[in-house]
């Protein structure tokens, strides 16, 4: 079974996270499983509700929405155990939490694969929040590991240039998209299409939302220490590395997920192949190949 893509959506109170989720649930083209903080704010057309049971709402389109509760891992386990399982899980971080903390859990929770860390910003209120004596550091911290920043309520913000500048100062690596009323293309919840086998070791792929991707397909088993050293040496412009590989000496297949200098290997079967995702400043294919060392070409 391939891991379920998991997206974390963060952002301060009022940034439009719930609006985005309500919109995604109502217009879903796939079975989303959504864990929300403020269950009461979920507001989908009653015609869409198939069943409601305590803190779970099942929709006629196959989506399900649950209250997060105290234990995020337990909530994820509950979602993954549903029949049928969701095709994509979205976790709404609370308005004051650090979404990166939540995203890290997806690196170790078996059966999930972390998609871009999305942080929503209320473009009209952001600069004020950043200078607020009580909220400034919380808002800045939420952007610290963002990969995709949605400048929401752009229609209310007037000049976006200073907002963009502030986001860039806090997290130069993040890609920025602009939205109004929390409406974004659901495709932003994916980094790239699943890696496909390619003939060479690293191949530059077309950018998605301004991210660069490279795909690498190792032929043999990898040495843990060597791989670890390569991961430690990755520059910040490489946001992600994910995919399967066989690890020496016994060649068992592992899922490797790397994000923002944190990573985890979990034993899981899969077609060997990594995708690297980064900013346009990320090292080119030759430099990355040099970093990961010689491998047999497929």
């Amino acid at each position: 079974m391939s891991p379920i893509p998991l997206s974390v959506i963060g952002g301060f109170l009022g940034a439009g996270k719930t609006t985005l989720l309500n919109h995604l649930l109502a217009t879903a083209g796939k079975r989303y499983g959504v864990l929300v903080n403020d269950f009461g704010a979920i507001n989908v057309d009653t015609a869409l509700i198939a069943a409601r049971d305590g803190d779970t709402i099942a929709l006629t389109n196959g989506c399900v929405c649950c209250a997060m509760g105290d234990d995020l891992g337990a909530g994820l386990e509950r979602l993954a155990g549903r029949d049928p399982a969701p095709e994509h899980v979205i976790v709404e971080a609370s308005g004051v939490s650090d979404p990166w903390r939540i995203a890290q859990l997806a690196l170790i929770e078996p059966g999930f694969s972390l998609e871009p860390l999305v942080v929503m910003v209320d473009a009209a209120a952001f600069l004020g929040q950043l200078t607020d004596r009580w909220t400034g550091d919380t808002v800045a911290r939420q952007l610290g590991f963002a990969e995709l920043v949605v400048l929401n309520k752009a229609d209310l913000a007037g000049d976006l240039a200073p907002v963009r500048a502030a986001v860039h100062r806090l997290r130069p690596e993040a890609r920025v998209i602009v939205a109004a009323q929390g409406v974004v293309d659901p495709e932003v919840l994916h980094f790239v299409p699943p890696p496909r086998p390619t003939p060479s070791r690293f191949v530059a792929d077309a950018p998605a939302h301004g991210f660069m991707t490279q795909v690498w397909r190792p032929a043999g088993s990898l040495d843990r220490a060597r791989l670890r050293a390569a991961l430690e040496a990755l520059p910040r412009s490489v946001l992600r590395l994910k995919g399967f590989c066989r690890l020496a000496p016994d060649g068992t297949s592992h899922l490797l997920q790397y994000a923002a200098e944190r990573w985890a290997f979990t034993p899981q079967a899969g077609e060997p192949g990594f995708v690297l995702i980064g900013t346009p400043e990320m090292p080119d294919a030759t430099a990355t190949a040099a970093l990961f060392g010689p491998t047999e070409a497929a």
Partner: protein
Amino acid sequence: MPQTVRVFTARRILTMNTSIPVATHVAVREGRVLGVGGTELLHEFGPVERDDRYAGKVLMPGFVEGHGHAVDGLVWRNPYVGFYPRRDPAGVWVEGLKSIEAVIARLQAVERGLADPAAAVVAWGFDPIFFGGRRMTAADLDRVSATRMVMVGHVSGHIQNVNTTVLERCGFSRDSNLDGLVRNGDGDLTGELQGPAVMGRASRVVGDAGILRAIDAPALWDYARIASRVGVTTSTDLANGLNPENVAALQEATLSEGFPLRLVPAMRQRDYGLEEGIARITELKRMSNPKLHFGLVKITVDGSIQGFTARLRWPGYHNGAPNGLWYVAPEELGAIVEAYHRAGHHIHLHTNGDEASELATEMVGRAIAAHPRPDHRHTLQHCQMADAAIFRRMASFGMCVNLFANHIWYWGEQHRALTMGPSRAQRLDACASALAAAVPMAIHSDVPVTPLDPLFTAWCAVNRLTPEGRVLGAAERISVTQALHAITMGAAYTLKMDHLIGSIDIGKHADFAVLEQDPYDVPAGALKDIGVAGTVVGGVPTAG
């Protein structure tokens, strides 16, 4: 026919009742105090039953724990491995463990007693701060069992230690490079887990959620037994989800014959939407009984100082750690406080750092300005770093405080060295400043974070000693009288129960703490050593 009048005689009765502060006799009828005084009580109420069992003892009003957690009755189902000796619900002293070796030995003994080969060994209360920097490792716990899962929770609640079996089953390895997985110099995992993400995963894998289990009636009985032994006749449970199952357990226990404790659970606000929560607390108030008082709402504003999750004002954490976390957004806090205040409810706010206390005070002030209401008694719980200015502001709004005096002993040295630094730590749990600003004050244990024992809590506030023998903030020491007030009338006032408990006065519940010595007859440094022979609850003597 009126019930019999029973007159308890005592060597001395410290009533905390301003009209009759000292007495030797107390008359009780229908569970309530009928009279306080001397031998005249034996003749004034017609035929009386004289009860001399406390003739050699000193009676005080039953102590009131303004911030405790009834889960203390539950944690004892797992082995205790703390540094300090602690008394279990049966009254047996469990020896404190002074080395990691001793912890391992206790766990090995527990392991040998387990029949089910799949059962996990889960212990609580571990506190390594006096082990000279030596941390527990997975290899240590592997000596308890190489096949069973072994998990040890730290007393602070922010750290766990696990053995290799747990690491493996969680999928944590050298190649899990995540925040919260502690590593040694070689990059290997030590088995120490920090923070909710990795701790939560381990708890789920071990299948023993420890203090997250639901509290049943037997656990409430165990908590009441622990309370009786230290003279406590009323305790909060701060907080409780108060779902139907929780309420059923509370009712079952408090309505059972001879239950020796009045419980005051606070509804955990974040378990409910705003309107839903207000409706629930309104409904709960009608479900109270003489030993179960609903009405408090608890809101958690920040984390803990020693966990570096409390919100601090300038200059932040002494060791340079980043500021802690808001558990609720400042603006949202304002809306929640306003809604509960406006609906007439009684709010207790958990604020550890001074920035959290400042914010909570501001938000309560705004709610009061918008919807004036006398006698609300909104209370800051912990409020450990507040300075005189915050206390003055609280006083201006009519707020109360419940300070965590036990922290001075248990974490004072750490606050001095790491979190607050030597100057700011002088005002850790600044009882004298609070009283100087005329803020109604209680002091607390936060049991099970520290043991329930109000005389110990009073000793902390009076002496402000640390285990290094240092007096931390001499100017914040309070008198024995002030401390005894804080653990009786002070706490009762913060619960809006000062008309029912907290002093021995006519019409109030006949709830007494039975002491072996008069607190005024012993040096202030010996306050914590006064023996407690038990309690009387509603006129009924309970075993000590």
